């Protein structure tokens, strides 16, 4: 039955739920009048912070809850930090655009927190059905959030595309769960990972089918080729804070959920699975990077870059699932997720600062003259872009370094090689904004560049500083991640 420890595990979620409900309640009891955005956001942030503290208080814990439906371990704690952090930044960015969000702002925050709860559920799930629920909660809230944007055409289109494809992928995912349930007899992840080897060795076709569908269902959420097609469109059409949240928190949680599923040496029984996933990883990197080169819209560039990064992270996942050393791979995946999230938040923060109109975003060429008008922003963005490109001594470099390291440790030379080639390609488009910012003659003053949003600016500068600082001293972070991953149930 429900014990205190169960409540403790879900305490962050409860706190979030309460914190998100308060503004809505205020609204309800205040005859449907919108509370001040500041109040709304304060509750949300408070909730996030409180959730963070609650999580921190459980950092040493490793336990399951609710009849093994949830598991709280280091990986979960670490992921929770990331998700909460991303959510906090996203909400702060939304606050910067409060004039465009003013109506229904409390609902928006509420839904945002809803998706955070869903994300946390996904993150902590120890049961595929909980995973599914988490994904759905997260996604459904996000669909609505996207559609609630003031922007007419693009956001509706983005929302609907995401919705249809997401539901489609959910069905696939669910089909996979059904097959796994049928073959394993349970949907609990530990039960599944325990039987993976046996089922794969026996060539249980249903299980093959199930695990394949399951992975592909996950793959949709983290935009692995060929399930990535929604990504650029949806990222572009969504309000930037939502995009930032999707690109960081959702991805982080999904990847961690995948890590949980992949936590078994049994996968080594089927090398074909590995080569199939490797192909997907390679294709993802390639498609993401090459398509990004041709983009004009900065948000689309980042969307494709996010696709490409999923490809890189896949390398780590493959190493975790099919290598000899799950721990080291998982550590690196988490580390990479962290670095990726930091950089992505920073870059989306810049878009949030500069974009004229939600959804339309800004083109790379619009950045012309940024160095003159907002030198600090320009510098911060440049740092982040170099970090994304993997130039040392930034966080991005150490992320890539450790990721390729894991690949080589597990003898995944081809993946590492492709990763490197793709990194080179990526340099091209990451540096294009830098070229525009610094190297084009800014004779024509671009009055367009109106920077709004103090919090987003702070976010940008903060993340930029973080990339450099952690890049220079990555050891403590790495140690933290290591401790987190090793603290596993």
């Amino acid at each position: 039955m429900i014990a205190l420890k169960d409540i403790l595990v879900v305490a962050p979620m409860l706190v979030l739920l309460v914190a998100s409900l308060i503004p809505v309640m205020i609204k309800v009891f205040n005859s449907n009048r919108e509370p001040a955005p500041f109040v709304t956001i304060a509750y949300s942030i408070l909730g996030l912070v409180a959730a963070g503290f609650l999580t921190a208080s459980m950092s040493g814990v490793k336990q399951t809850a609710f009849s093994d439906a949830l598991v709280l371990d280091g990986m979960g704690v670490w992921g929770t930090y990331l998700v909460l952090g991303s959510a906090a930044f996203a909400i702060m960015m939304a606050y910067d655009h409060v004039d465009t969000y003013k109506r229904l702002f409390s609902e928006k925050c509420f839904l945002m927190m809803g998706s955070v709860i869903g994300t946390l559920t996904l993150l902590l799930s120890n049961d595929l059905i909980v995973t599914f629920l988490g994904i759905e909660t997260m996604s459904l809230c996000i669909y609505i959030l996207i559609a609630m944007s003031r922007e007419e055409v693009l956001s509706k289109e983005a929302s609907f595309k995401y919705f249809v494809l997401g539901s489609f992928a959910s069905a696939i995912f669910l089909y996979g769960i059904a097959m796994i349930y049928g073959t394993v007899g349970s949907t609990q992840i530990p039960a599944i990972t325990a039987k993976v080897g046996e089922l794969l060795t026996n060539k249980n076709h249903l299980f093959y089918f199930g695990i394949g569908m399951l992975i592909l269902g996950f793959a949709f959420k983290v935009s692995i080729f060929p399930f990535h097609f929604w990504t650029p469109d949806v990222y572009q059409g969504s309000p930037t804070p939502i995009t930032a949240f999707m690109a960081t928190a959702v991805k982080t949680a999904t990847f961690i959920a995948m890590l949980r599923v992949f936590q078994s040496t049994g996968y080594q029984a089927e090398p074909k699975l590995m080569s199939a996933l490797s192909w997907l990883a390679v294709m993802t990197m390639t498609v993401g990077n090459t398509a990004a080169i041709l983009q004009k819209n900065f948000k689309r560039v980042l969307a494709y870059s996010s696709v490409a990064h999923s490809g890189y992270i896949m390398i780590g996942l493959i190493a975790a699932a099919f290598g000899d050393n799950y721990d080291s791979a998982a550590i690196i995946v988490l580390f990479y997720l962290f670095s990726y999230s930091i950089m992505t938040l920073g870059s989306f923060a810049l878009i949030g600062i500069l974009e004229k109109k939600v959804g339309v975003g800004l083109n790379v060429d619009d950045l012309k003259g940024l160095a003159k008008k907002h030198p600090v922003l320009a510098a911060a963005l440049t740092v982040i872009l170099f970090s994304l490109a993997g130039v040392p001594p930034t966080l991005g470099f150490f992320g890539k370094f450790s990721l390729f390291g894991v690949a080589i440790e597990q003898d995944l030379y081809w993946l590492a090689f492709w990763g490197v080639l793709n990194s080179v390609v990526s340099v091209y488009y990451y540096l294009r904004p830098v070229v525009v910012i610094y190297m084009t003659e800014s004779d024509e003053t671009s009055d367009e560049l109106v920077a709004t949003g103090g919090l987003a600016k702070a976010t940008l500068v903060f993340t930029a500083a973080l990339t450099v600082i952690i890049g220079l001293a990555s050891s403590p972070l790495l140690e933290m991640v290591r401790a987190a991953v090793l603290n596993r149930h």
Partner: protein
Amino acid sequence: MASSKAEFLFAILILAPLLGFLANGLRWKSKNYMLAGSIATAAAGTSFIAALAIVMRLFGEGAPKAVTADFFQWISIAGLEVPVSFVIDHISALMVLVVTGVGTLIHLFSIGYMSHDERPTKYFAYLNLFLFNMLLLILGENLVLMFVGWEGVGLCSYLLIGFWFTDKEKAAAGMKAFVTNRIGDAGFLLGMFMLFVTFGSLGFSEIISKVAGLAAETGWTGPITLAALFLFVGATGKSAQIPLYVWLPDAMAGPTPVSALIHAATMVTAGVYMIVRLSPLFILAPNAMMVIAIIGAATAVLAATIGLTQFDIKKVLAYSTVSQLGYMFLACGVGAFGAAMFHLVTHAFFKALMFLGSGSVIHGMHEEQDIRKMGGLAKYMPLTYLTFFVGWIAIIGLPPFAGFFSKDEILWFAFSSPHGSVWLWLAGFVGAACTAFYMTRLMALTFWGKPRFDEHHTHPHEAGPSMTIPLVVLAILSAVGGFMGIPHVIGEILPGHPGNWLEHWLHGFIAVPAGETHGSAVMEWILMGLSVSIAGLSAITAYFFYVKEPSVVERVKNRMGRLHTLVYNKYFVDEIYFAKIIDPIVNGSKALWAFVDVNFIDRATFVAGDLVKGIGSTARTLQSGNLQQYALFIALGVVGFLAFLFELRASLGKLLMQAFGG
């Protein structure tokens, strides 16, 4: 063994010109030609005196075989020791005296010659710098040091040829000289490397002591043969032999004293000097010797024939120089290193004399160099005429002037040496005939006959003493210089039976070819007679042609039209070089640039980039915005992934059958 005093003297000897260079070089804008010239001449003179002081030590009983001076270790790496040390032995003694002596005279001459120039100080600085480098070349105890001087003189030659650089032609001539020399230098380097790889040392004495016991190589690819050939390539560059002689005639673009000093008396003989220095090595490579001899003979004849038709007074002398250098190489090639040295010295005297004489003429004629516009200058410039006359006799080889002795010795060795042959002699003989002819022609057109210039406008005049004194001194040397090497057959009939002093002096320092000499004293007399008489005959013919019956020249010219065109245009060697070597290289380089860099490497980069962009645009095409298409890709992805997992290609049929049959 070298006392500190020797080092002191060496320091003076070598540093004096350097100091002169610095003194003039640092005030290079000055137009005070007298001061500059004085400094430079004093520097050269100091060198000469120091050289003399050192050379004096070699004389007398119990005198050392060589005076050496070590200064410091220049480079020293793992077995490669390159000390800065100098040596004056019996070979370099000759050379150093010639260089500093003749050099001083030419410096002196230059004071007058350059008096009207805009940048005399610079000129004298260069001249001193040249002297410094030349001394390094001569005195260096190892090949590296010699190479330093070797390149250094090339550089100075470049600077001095292009001294009047505003003229594109002259600048081009300088560059041509340097580059051609560089080709030779590359050979020199390779030769050096070959020697180092073979003997592990680059010191002359060490190499010579190491080759001492070795047997002669018979093939073409032995290390010594290769080294010798490489070094000879270096020599052909510096000493203007086939195929690298082309720079020397063009080098006449420089001021005339420079031509006298660098391009006649000293620098161009460096190749000969180097071979003589390494004669124990060369003698072990008979095939290389043969090459040297043939090249030398060929150059002697070829250059002489070109000389027959030239009208530029300096060009004639230049080709003559090339030809005479050919004689020296012929001598080296047949193993007559002593004869080569002998000719080197006498040639330095008379050719410097003639160049200075021509300089005097040009100076007097207000920079006119075309001998067709001269004539009858004897009466205007008697002293110049007189000294030039001495030089003329010396070069065409009439006894008892210097040229006779040295050239005849070479011809004799070409015939009699174990390495010699009658063909080599014949080549030398023909060359001698041509030499006599073109030199007489030069005399005739310049000094004899009627003036062909406008006497009202041009007033040829004798120059001042600074220019005439060197002429006189050199004329004397040209006249008597030959007596240092009187052939035995002549010495025997002379009172007091003077021996061949030079041969004695060089004995033990140069290699002597092993094997039997052919020919006898009678033969030597006969050949001597032949060469003297052919020289005389040629001279008389030329005199007849150009003074008595100038019309004959035209007739001969017309009769042999094509041949004349060919020779007059220097066998079109320059043109051929340009068309067949230089242009192809330049065009080839452009093509390389265009094809390799631009069209291949960069293109490859672009193609790679385009490929990436192609993939990207394909990905973008797929990104059609159509939701259902995305869903299709998802479905296809699922299908593909699962099909791969199930190895569907192999088991598709089975699977379907069971699916429907089950």
